[in-house]
């Protein structure tokens, strides 16, 4: 069943929505500017402690994300589920569904920060974020051949890091999962790391593509049980892994939405 997201933009503005947007946009800009101002000091302190630049920047981005969660909390209820499936410092590839620009911010709900995001080219065009993304060695998957992507990911895995992909490639405009591309699954299989599906729900109400105003909602991030990629080493393995991951994410999304509907 397709959920109409465009219809939400025609809903009348309530006082809460007005208040939320009067608070969230300025707070987000101020928090971003504060983060930029404090980053050099944070970075230099970390370098004095001999922390690697990419790891240090990922930690700063995670803290920035945590701050954003706090700023949104008066209007957004954040839920974390399945965190017991995560093992600290075990390399893995996260595959997450994609509804909103703010999905990336919600990754600060994870208790791990050493994550290299694999994204398309357009986020690198946002000049205020670009420098940080480069320092964190985020991956531009749109313009890179698979061999280069694989090399970068293996480097991250070798340092006990994780890599995060949005297998749909872009944000859903229907509120349902779109087709999954194969790249993430090939990387997980070739690198022989576990694939951890992450299901995010609720950001399609918070701020879907094409809408300018935030709306109050509940956002859930659920970590699904890891999938061992050793069983997917055959020629069609990435296709099976892709289908299995999508099947599990679709089931989790339905389940979360059922829970939310019950809670109303």
């Amino acid at each position, binding site marked *: 069943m397709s959920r109409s997201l465009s219809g939400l933009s025609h809903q009348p503005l309530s006082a809460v929505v007005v208040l939320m947007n009067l608070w969230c946009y300025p707070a987000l800009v101020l928090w971003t500017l504060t983060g930029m101002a404090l980053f050099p000091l944070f970075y230099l302190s970390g370098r004095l402690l001999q922390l690697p630049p990419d790891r240090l920047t990922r930690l700063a981005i995670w803290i920035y994300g945590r701050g954003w969660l706090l700023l949104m909390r008066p209007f957004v209820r954040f839920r974390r589920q399945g965190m017991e499936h995560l093992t600290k410092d075990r390399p893995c590839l996260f595959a997450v569904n994609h509804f909103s620009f703010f999905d990336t911010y919600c990754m600060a709900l994870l208790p791990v920060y050493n994550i290299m995001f694999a994204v398309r080219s357009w986020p690198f065009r946002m000049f205020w974020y670009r420098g940080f993304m480069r320092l964190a060695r985020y991956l531009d998957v749109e313009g890179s*051949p*698979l061999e280069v992507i694989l090399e970068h990911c293996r480097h991250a895995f070798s340092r006990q890091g994780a890599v995060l992909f949005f297998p749909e490639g872009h944000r859903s405009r229907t509120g349902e999962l*779109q*087709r999954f*591309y*194969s*790249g993430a699954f*090939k990387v997980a299989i070739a690198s022989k790391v576990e694939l951890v599906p992450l299901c995010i729900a609720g950001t399609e109400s918070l701020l879907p593509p094409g809408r300018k105003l935030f709306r109050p909602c509940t956002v859930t991030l659920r970590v699904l049980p890891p999938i061992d990629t050793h069983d997917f080493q055959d*020629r*069609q393995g*990435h*296709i099976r892994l892709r289908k299995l991951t999508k099947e599990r994410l679709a089931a989790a999304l339905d389940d979360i939405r059922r829970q939310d509907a019950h809670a109303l």
Partner: protein
Amino acid sequence: MTEQDVIELIDSSLAEEFELNREEMTPEANIYEDLGLDSLDTVDMVIVLEAAFKFKIREEEAVRGIRTLGDIHRFVLEKMAESS
């Protein structure tokens, strides 16, 4: 299998694998720009066609040259003509 059957099997297999909209699947449709496939999908496309038609595709050069759905139709039809 008639030519029309072959084309139907190609289109239905690709539509299922890549979740494509059948209405957009015209012979002139560019598989990258119009149907949204990427370079990695070409490998999956070969696997799908091999499974659907039970033959092996070794003509990597020819596959790399495929741009439209019509190119895929012609490629498979030629393969089938060769093997019959």
